[in-house]
């Protein structure tokens, strides 16, 4: 299996919808996936984080899926879309 490294936007909905520490849970469930928070803006109601996930493709996919099921929105970070 190939190791991959991917950047994602993690969007946290309101606190009442997700009360669990999802990122901590994810890292417990997928200890082989390295996560690195590159950017974050967390307010009362909503939070957004740029996260780099590294590991076996299978594991990274699983980690992403875990967070989605737990109620986070997880989107891949796009490169520049505005062209000349």
């Amino acid at each position, binding site marked *: 299996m190939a190791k991959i490294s*991917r950047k994602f936007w993690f969007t946290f909905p309101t606190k009442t919808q997700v009360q669990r520490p999802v990122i901590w849970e994810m890292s417990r469930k997928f200890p082989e996936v390295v996560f690195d928070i590159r950017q974050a803006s967390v307010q009362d109601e909503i939070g957004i984080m740029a996260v780099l996930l590294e590991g076996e493709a299978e594991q990274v996919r699983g980690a992403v899926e875990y967070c989605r099921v737990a109620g986070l929105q997880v989107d*891949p970070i*796009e*490169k520049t*879309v505005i*062209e*000349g």
Partner: protein
Amino acid sequence: MTYVKGLKCKECGHRVPATPVHVCEQCFGPYEVEYDYEAMKGKVTRESIAAGPHSLWRYKDLLPVDVPRTGFNSGMTPLRRAPNLEKLLGCREIWIKDDSCNYPTYSYKERVVSVSISKAVEFGFDTVGCASTGNLANSTAAHAVTAGVKCFVMIPHDLEQGKVLGSLIFGPTMVRIKGNYDDVNRLCTEIADKYGWAIVNVNLRPYYTEGAKTFGFEIAEQLGWKLPQHTISPTAGGTILPKIYKGYQEFIELGLVEDNKPKMYSAQAAGCNPVVTAIHKGSDIIEPQKPNTIAKSIAIGNPADGYYVYNVIKDSGGWGESATDAEIVDAIRLLGKTEGIWTEPAGGTTLAVAIKLIQQGRIPKDESICICITGNGLKTLETVQDALPYPEVINAKLNEFDAIIDRLGETKSEPELATV
């Protein structure tokens, strides 16, 4: 009848049918169109191509489109020998592939947009869009008209008026967005997600990028079914360079040209050179930059396909260089004076870098060289305005005109290499 098998992820190899998706559902890598080359053999020939229309659609068998909807006059731009540059640089064989006269909006973008919008219609979209500061917007807006679809163009709010008009004339809905570059970028990604439009270079990216192969196909065919040994191409988002190379490789695979191990070279502006920096460092990690250059059409700090440019450069044995703004302006003027072609800063960058690579000895003077000119200088008047001495005024008297001729006689000289 097409030879398309479907889409295949460039990273993990995951396959899906040809649909409007661009990121792999498994690993978020980019999808690329996969063809059945075996089925093409003996059917896609020099003769079958030469019998096609005089446009980029002569290569339809190698493009992911059933029914072309626009671009009927796009592509098949001149490939010109450059005897004066050869003389000046002491080279045996220099060619210029000249998309400064690509129809109808004068840049290489006609190729990618023709394919992308044709595919959008095939998928049933009635609205196309893009986020662009210039060439891509011009081309998308124009081809949307021909294809009969609605068009949205997103631009940063502070874009120069000239650039806005160049798209507005074709009647798209234009939206000016406030915020810094990253904000605009982010919003455009969200728009692409939410509205279900065909954003030509985002959700249709696998089809869009295929259009750039026609730049390479044409070079090979126009050179008499041969490949140049060295090809210098600009790099912005990283579409065109790898796709010229893919075009070469497909012709080799089909036996249409001999494999002479063509080398690719990337040209970037010094004020925005994330890919060239990576090439020089020997690292495939493309670190994003904040662009600061007059070469706005190729100023992409976080290129979507930069990594693939890096790979092609490495695999082909080529290299990359950057040019300062002053070198870019000098090269624009040099191309005008030597070969009668007016290009925009992207082309100035490419020529300036070609000269550097030749002078460094990276590109041997006795081998065949192709310089890719991808845009037109009429769109970027401001970049050369200060560099060109404004003509003097005389009275309507013959003796005053004579005086000018006398002075010219004293100073007339051959074009020089300001970049030496």
